[in-house]
């Protein structure tokens, strides 16, 4: 195998794949006409392809189609059921949470507000604040 052959091998492959441009194709064809070694490699590559084609189709295990049919029919029924059940469960959960949390939060806020109203004498506090404010204004003036 010459240096020229090893350099040309990728181009020969390209030509075999039908991807070589016109110039490369001519170069390869010219080389193959005289080079027995490269002719041998080309025929061996073709053998490799035949072997792959021969080995590829493989009979699947028995019951392949039956199991596939089961898988095809199962998810459709299950997905609708699962969707309905999960939707129902989620919406119920959300509703319960909102009602429970919402009502308890509202009652807590309501009782806090009532406690503030009852414990603090707002009118007295406002009077004190107003007096302090007027004193400040007097001092300033």
């Amino acid at each position: 195998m010459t240096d020229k052959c090893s350099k040309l091998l990728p181009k020969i492959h390209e030509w075999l794949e039908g991807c070589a441009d016109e110039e490369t194709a001519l170069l390869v064809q010219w080389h193959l006409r005289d080079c027995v070694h490269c002719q041998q490699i080309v025929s061996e590559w073709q053998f490799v392809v035949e072997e792959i084609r021969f080995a590829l189709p493989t009979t699947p295990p028995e019951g392949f189609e039956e199991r596939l049919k089961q898988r095809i029919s199962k998810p459709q029924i299950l997905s609708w059921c699962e969707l309905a059940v999960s939707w129902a469960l989620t919406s119920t959960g959300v509703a319960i949470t909102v009602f429970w949390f919402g009502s308890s939060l509202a009652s807590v806020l309501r009782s806090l507000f009532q406690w503030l109203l009852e414990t603090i004498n707002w009118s007295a506090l406002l009077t004190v604040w107003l007096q302090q404010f007027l004193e400040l204004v007097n001092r300033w003036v």
Partner: protein
Amino acid sequence: MDDDELVRCCLNGCGWAFDELVKRYRDRVYGVALHLLGDRDLAEDLAQEAFLRAFQKLELFDSTKGSFSVWVVALTTRLCLNALKRRNLERRLFAGQEDAEAIEPSDNTCSFEEWLAMERREVIHNLLLSLPPMQRAALLLRYGEDMSIHDIAQVLRVPVGTVKVWLFRGRETLRRRLKEVGLL
């Protein structure tokens, strides 16, 4: 009835049409999965998954872009490559696990010719498994399924030039190894 007619028939609700498509391509789809994964159970599982996805997304199939077989084989290849990525990750986590399964004869009462063919298949299967997964996938799609290099590049999500290099390297490696085992 050709594949396109069967697909149309299936979309119109004929259950038997998809069964016919499965019957036509199960060997090729399972073959691609087995040669890519080297594991019978996983290959069956993923071949079924590919058919299942094809069935569920049948309305997306466009016959102008390629045949049904190419479409379903492309689906299988993607599924297998993803599975291989996951398995590599698992192997890194749990090092020292199983290796490729051999293709075993289903019964011992086969003729000499059948046995010879089985042996030949096994040699090719093992040689293919010794190649890197993407190179193996490129070889199987190109020479096993007659897919164009452009289509393979799309399926494997790599540039066209990369596919050409993988094909050259893969074919050359296989040629050398076949010579070493005396099949060439």
